[in-house]
């Protein structure tokens, strides 16, 4: 397949080389003809003129400034004169053409085009599944890092040159190809490999919602098979994206709201959900209990409004602090100001409050609110929103009780959805459960995970994927979830793995019990330590290992041993 951008580069190069090459040819031919015409004298003193062969030979080595001397015979004065002329002629012609080539190669437009062509070729030559990440902000960066850590190749599209340069000095576990172009244009996405059959997912996490929307539309229309994950800031954009079957849409405001709501109503479910959906570096949140009483909400933007509504619905007294109480539908009794000053906080009654929510869109303000409020009332429960990752160390140091990071929320939820298509139905069902079930599940994980969040993995019980298990099931034997999770090195131990969810034709089973029998065709969603799922997979493919896991007996390998085993009964 010929690439228009690629061939136009060649044409551009050739067109620019017209004049230099013509000059070079003319200079050489004039010099050569000159040598064949100038009379000389051979070693016997006879008159002699060069033929074309000798002339071209002489011009070739003078033109390239090598200079073998005067061959085959010493030159006559006339020939020497012409040699001088031809030296200047050919050397200048060379300088001119080489200068033209170099100036063309250094032309910024040409170099940009060259770079893009090279990248496009790289993407075309990819022969492994890759993800297309649009936007390399905090979210895109986190996603790229996590995806490459899992061994996926990533193509990044970002229009900000600075961010691309940042990316280029970073080290990744898998190849990352970075395009500096506008993801808003479908052609650019195609160039970045949207239509490639290896493109397994498009992730639209640019800072602008309508750009993400456009990317989601382009991806859905141009490649039916690709999975599309997008983030957005408004409900209408989210609904719009869902209307054309975008695989997963995350709205950080909604997500923040959901987590805060969980933290209030079902603290253990919140911990589990937050742990599973906040990226590979998430820590398990400490047990929180959100106090009831008077709350202060600083900032009445999208998040502030949502938090206000949430707290109001739980019959708590809420005072809002906002710079402009008249506008944007602030509730009655809103205190004017940003909340960074002690007077404003006192006016809102911080001394008698149980908690403060700092959700302005300025990180410095949020931190300032937190510190000022804490000085006035040390017992406050502090909820804060972190808008960008650049001041993450400060937020960590401030130790709020509840921290919201839109970028890691978006990256984390998208990452968990990428792991398996079963994560979304699992999450939906999980959110319906009550706190006790979540506490048990969390306790299950805490048996083997202390810090790193469990990794999702999934698989299907089928003759092709799990041949050994399929044979056992087909033979009519029963295999339960508990047996499945036995450690292949010591069958009485358990793998560091939990079965979260089983999808059977008609029914979904959440947190199946250990004695739950498996069946052919089941789809399993598991989570646990990195690499454990691979060990399980190896067991399910190997008859001997599966037999050991199920019965604790080592089946002998090889015909002779099996025969002996049968004899001995």
């Amino acid at each position, binding site marked *: 397949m010929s690439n228009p951008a690629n061939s136009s580069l060649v044409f551009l190069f050739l067109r620019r080389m017209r004049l230099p090459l013509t000059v070079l*040819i003319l200079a050489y031919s004039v010099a050569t003809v000159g040598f064949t015409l100038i009379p000389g004298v051979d070693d016997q003193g006879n008159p002699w003129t060069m033929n074309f062969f000798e002339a071209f030979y002489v011009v070739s080595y003078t033109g390239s400034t090598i200079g073998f001397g005067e061959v085959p015979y010493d030159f006559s004065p006339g020939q020497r004169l012409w040699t001088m002329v031809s030296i200047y002629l050919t050397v200048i012609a060379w300088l001119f053409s080489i200068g033209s080539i170099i100036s063309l190669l250094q032309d910024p437009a040409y170099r940009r085009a060259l770079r893009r062509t090279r990248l496009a070729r790289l993407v075309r030559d990819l022969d492994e599944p890759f993800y297309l990440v649009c936007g390399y902000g905090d979210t895109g960066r986190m996603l790229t890092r996590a995806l490459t850590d899992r061994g996926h190749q990533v193509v990044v599209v970002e229009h900000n040159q600075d961010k691309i340069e940042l990316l280029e000095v970073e080290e990744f576990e898998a190849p990352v190809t970075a395009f500096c172009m506008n993801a808003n244009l479908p052609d650019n996405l195609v160039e970045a490999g949207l239509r490639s059959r290896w493109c397994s997912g498009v992730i639209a996490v640019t800072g602008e919602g309508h750009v993400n929307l456009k990317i989601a539309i382009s991806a859905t229309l141009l490649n039916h098979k690709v999975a599309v994950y997008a983030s957005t800031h408004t409900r209408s954009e989210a609904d719009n994206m869902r209307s054309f079957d975008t695989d997963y849409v995350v709205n950080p405001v909604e997500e923040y709201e959901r987590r805060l709501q969980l933290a209030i109503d079902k603290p253990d479910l919140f911990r589990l959900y937050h742990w599973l959906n906040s990226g590979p570096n998430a820590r398990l949140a400490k047990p929180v209990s959100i106090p009831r009483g008077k709350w202060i909400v600083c900032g009445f933007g999208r998040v502030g409004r949502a938090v206000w509504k949430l707290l109001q619905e739980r019959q708590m007294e809420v005072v809002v602090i906002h710079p402009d109480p008249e506008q944007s539908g602030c509730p009655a009794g809103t205190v004017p100001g940003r909340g960074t000053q002690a007077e404003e906080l006192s006016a809102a009654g911080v001394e008698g409050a149980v908690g403060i929510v700092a959700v302005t869109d300025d990180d410095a303000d949020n931190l300032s609110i937190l510190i000022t409020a804490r000085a006035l009332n040390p017992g406050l429960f502090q909820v804060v929103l972190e808008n960008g990752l650049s001041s993450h160390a400060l937020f960590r140091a401030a130790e709020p009780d509840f921290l919201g990071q839109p970028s890691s929320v978006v990256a984390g939820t998208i990452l968990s959805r990428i792991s398996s298509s079963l994560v979304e139905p699992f999450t939906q069902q999980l959110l319906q459960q009550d706190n006790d079930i979540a506490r048990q599940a969390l306790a299950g994980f805490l048996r083997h995970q202390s810090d790193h969040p469990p990794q999702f993995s999934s698989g299907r019980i089928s003759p092709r994927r799990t041949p050994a298990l399929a044979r056992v099931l087909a033979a009519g034997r029963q295999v339960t979830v508990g047996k499945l999770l036995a450690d292949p090195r010591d069958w009485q131990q358990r793998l560091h793995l939990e079965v979260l969810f089983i999808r059977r034709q008609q029914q979904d089973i959440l947190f199946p019990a250990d004695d739950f029998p498996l069946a052919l065709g089941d789809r399993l969603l598991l989570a646990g330590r990195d690499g454990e799922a691979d060990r399980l997979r190896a067991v399910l493919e190997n008859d001997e290992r599966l037999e050991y896991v199920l019965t604790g007996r080592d089946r002998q390998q090889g015909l002779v041993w099996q025969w002996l085993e049968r004899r001995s009964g």
Partner: protein
Amino acid sequence: MNMSKVMFGFFVLLAVTLNFGFFIGDIDNPQHHDVYELFAALVVGLIATVLKFGERSQMGAILLASSLVVNLHLIAAVIVWTIAVHVTEVGLTPRVMASIVSLSGGALLANLVSLVLLTLDTAGLSRR
């Protein structure tokens, strides 16, 4: 009038005429085929090729292709000449001369194609 068009037409035409001049005459008689004329035909052919670089139209592509064919033939003819006279020192025997001239004949054919295409292109241009 466009100076680049003049140059282009000039070189294409000159390539044909020089090539024809070299080609005409008894096929195996060195007296009828001058080495300067072959040299000139090759140089002009090379320049015509370079001038056709970077044309994106279909016509430009065919013109470039025919020019490349011309050069291939003429360079082959020059190499045969050089090897016969300077390397193996067989000299311009009728057999060698015939092969040189027939190579240049092939070049002439490709040159004529070039010329016809150019003419067609120009005719098409004036009709519009």
